[in-house]
């Protein structure tokens, strides 16, 4: 029996520190749920220390896989940007840390048949993490202009 409370405290500290050091703490909040959207491509930016994925719905992915890029109404793109961080236990890889920004681009057609783009930026990383020197048109161009990363045929 533990007669002195100090022993109980010490034992507690010991147990906690053991169970803590055994496994790393998983951080599911760093995952992004893209729903049914598929990966179009990824981007590394070492000037801004970010790493990104561009997701798209079916029409967006088909457009990105086509070497002649044409855009049609209904395409939807989401670019998720994470802060880069060094991979724990492997010096020599950077991986995604916390989510900084989510940008959405939707392609629509006006009654006259003209294609237009709507752009929505959600900064989740606190301050403005998407390059302030870059215009919204440039972001739309980047996001809708990335060719799909090549994967084996399915």
């Amino acid at each position, binding site marked *: 029996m533990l007669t002195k409370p100090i022993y109980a405290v010490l034992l507690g500290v010991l147990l906690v520190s053991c169970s803590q*050091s*055994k*496994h*790393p*703490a*998983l*951080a*599911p*909040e*760093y*995952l*992004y*749920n*893209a729903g049914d959207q*598929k*990966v179009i*491509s*990824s*981007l*590394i*930016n*070492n*000037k*801004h220390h970010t*790493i*990104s*994925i561009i997701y798209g719905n079916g029409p967006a992915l088909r457009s990105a896989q086509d*070497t002649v890029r044409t855009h049609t109404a209904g395409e939807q793109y989401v670019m998720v940007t*994470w802060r*880069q961080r060094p*991979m*724990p*236990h*492997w*010096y*020599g*890889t*950077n*991986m*995604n840390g916390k989510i900084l920004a989510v940008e959405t681009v939707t392609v629509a057609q006006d009654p006259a048949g003209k294609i237009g783009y709507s752009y929505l930026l959600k900064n989740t990383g606190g301050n403005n993490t998407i*390059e302030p020197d*870059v215009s919204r048109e440039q972001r739309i161009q*980047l996001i809708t202009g*990335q*060719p799909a*990363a*090549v*994967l*084996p*045929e*399915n």
Partner: protein
Amino acid sequence: MKKSKMNPLKMIFAFLAIAIVIVIPLQFSSPVIENPPVKSEIELPGDIQAILQRACYDCHSNHSQTAWFDRIAPASYLVAHDIKEGRTRFNFSDWKANPPAVQELLLWEMVNAIEEHKMPLKSYVMVHPAAGISAAELTALKSYVNSLPGRHKIDTARIIRSAGAPGAASKTAGTNAPVSLNGIKYSGDYQNWKIISVTDKYDGGSMRVVYGNDIMVKAIKQRQLPFPDGAKIVKAVWGKQHEDKVGNISPGNFQNVQIMIKDSKKYKSTEGWGFAKFEGLRLKPSGKTALFATTCINCHRLLVPESDFVFNIPTK
């Protein structure tokens, strides 16, 4: 019950008896550490060579220099075992046995083995304190690996988008899917899975997207470690293209996919994970025999045993 006490004299006799009966005869069968001839010695800058020579050569080269106390049984058995095992992992005196990309990967792995205090083996440093590596030496090793050619490799080749001619029947789908030498069949299902990680890897200049199936993602969400049977991880690897004006780097050619499938019974010999790797758009299975998976787990086991041998997990 009263414990019977041995008087000191009896104790000394007992020790001597043990020494005569066990330890001395052991010396006659004690393993002899031999240095086979050098095949192709690694070539390194002088300062780097000196560090590795002092700290690693006893076990990872054909220049093992054992101390007198290493040659006394039973210690000699451990020493011989470590040297034999160390040389099979990689041997500085048979360095060209590794293709150039593997040579670079091994050097990065060495840096990590040192940084994570896995190498030199703790038992060895205890009796050979001079083999320890200082922080300044580790920094020198890091700058050396960062100067290797693979670190700044840029994929400038035209991007190949398909394994066959346009419109040709898919070579990868369904029953014709390639199978790894340990029996893992390629499937493109991961393209519908969630992403668990995105990475920029320094050696070899590549960028990666890591997908997890529902079981894997659910385990991360529930903070469940080790990962349950049925968890699957697929990593797709591309070259890196030139950086654009605003600093963006996009994927170049597709290089390979790497797979880990958790089945604690089936893949018991590799810590419960089934490993597979398929190269190029034609998805050529990696390795020469099914033992290729041992090289996979050896590196994952050395560096990430606490996270169920998985590097790419979101952690705080």
